[in-house]
């Protein structure tokens, strides 16, 4: 219970628009609390530093606020959030690569940023099988890893296909390929 008091009589009679704005802000913050972590984990597949991921997530929710304020569709907000995060992630990475090329060059012939995942991943996992799994995950093609990540976050095939601009068939092939590789690594 909060003890803040308020003189109601002093409130302008037509404060509705302002009140609605406040309610919408709270709704967006509530959605942020639910989806920040899944989005950050997804953005990790872009090989961007965590700070960049956080900034992209901020942009995603500022866009969501504008989207809802304009009366945009509320159906499948989960798909909407991942799609916007995906597009912003691609844009951010493209910009980073361009700045690399302009200033300090990256690895020769490298199209992408190096994946920063190996360190923490290997710290987390113990044992030979776990290390093999980490190696398989790093070796997965980027799109396969994204499919797998989105599926692990609970997205249905249709939502994954919409986010990554793939066909449903391509989504199921990609997931099968990745799971078969992981299963092989566990077998050895």
């Amino acid at each position, binding site marked *: 219970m909060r003890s803040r008091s308020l003189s109601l009589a002093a409130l302008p009679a037509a404060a509705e628009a302002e009140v609605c704005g406040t309610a919408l802000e709270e*709704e967006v*913050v509530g959605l942020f609390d639910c989806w920040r972590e899944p989005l950050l984990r997804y953005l990790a597949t872009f090989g961007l530093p965590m700070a960049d991921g*956080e900034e992209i997530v901020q942009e995603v929710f*500022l866009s969501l606020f504008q989207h809802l304020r*304009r009366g945009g569709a509320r159906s499948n907000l989960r798909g909407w959030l991942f799609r916007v995060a995906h597009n912003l992630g691609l844009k951010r990475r493209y910009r980073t690569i361009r700045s690399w090329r302009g200033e300090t060059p990256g690895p020769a012939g490298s199209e992408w940023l190096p994946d920063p995942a190996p360190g923490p991943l290997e710290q987390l996992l113990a044992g030979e099988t776990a290390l093999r799994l*980490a190696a398989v*995950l790093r070796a997965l093609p980027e799109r396969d890893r994204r499919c797998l990540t989105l599926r*692990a976050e609970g997205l249905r095939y249709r939502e994954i296909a919409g986010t990554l601009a793939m066909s449903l068939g391509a989504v199921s092939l990609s997931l099968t390929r990745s799971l078969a590789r*992981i299963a092989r690594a566990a077998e050895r």
Partner: protein
Amino acid sequence: MRNRDAHLSDEELVLAADGELSAARAAEIAGHLDACWTCRARRRQLEDAAADFRRVHQETPLPPASAARARLRARLAGIAAERPVGRHAWLHTRLHARLRAAAVGAIALIATVGIFSLQPWRWSRANRPLEVPSPRLTPGAARTADREQLCQAPLPKNQAAPADLRQRVFQAYGMANADPRAYEVDYLITPALGGAEDIRNLWPQPYVSTVWNARVKDALEDRLRDLVCGGQLDLAEAQREISANWIAAYKKYFQTDQPPPAP
């Protein structure tokens, strides 16, 4: 035509495990799995692979949310203070004031018709349903924080706030002319969770046109009371969560992003 005895492909096993097949094909596959040890073992391997990945994925180390949340709040407040943009912006910039008033009146009329016919209706921005109350006007107020007292007393009857108090709530929200039949003046902290009959604990919650409506909140209130009286949740914490953002609390306690559709 498929050969019933042929082993299933990895793709079909994955599609079946993910519930992405037609009912007829899923039934055929279930039948095959009942009879085939080889395919069952393969399915287990693929499911283990999914579980392994999920475990690693969930363990991705992430910084705490508090600083990022505070930053988002500040930025949202900044944007909210700006003039509205987007597809309704022309209403604010191009039209003569009288025309604008007429347009707003027409939107209000259409919205009212929408309520009476109980058809799904996308509300204009000015009539956006108050899914969560204004934290300024309705921060929430409790009459008790004593769990024993609350849980041993009979369940308070779900009665409406007095008429004059309801009227003051509509006025506070600048909705003195709203149709009272379209809203429940609801307790933010329900009396069954120790909420007070206090204007700081009441807000006009729409019955229709929103996913997050009074019916959904009732379900959350029942769940929280069960948890509190079952000793699984602190009463003050339940009061805090429901008053901070009841939608976020619903998502947390029902572990879902969307409430079930209305029966």
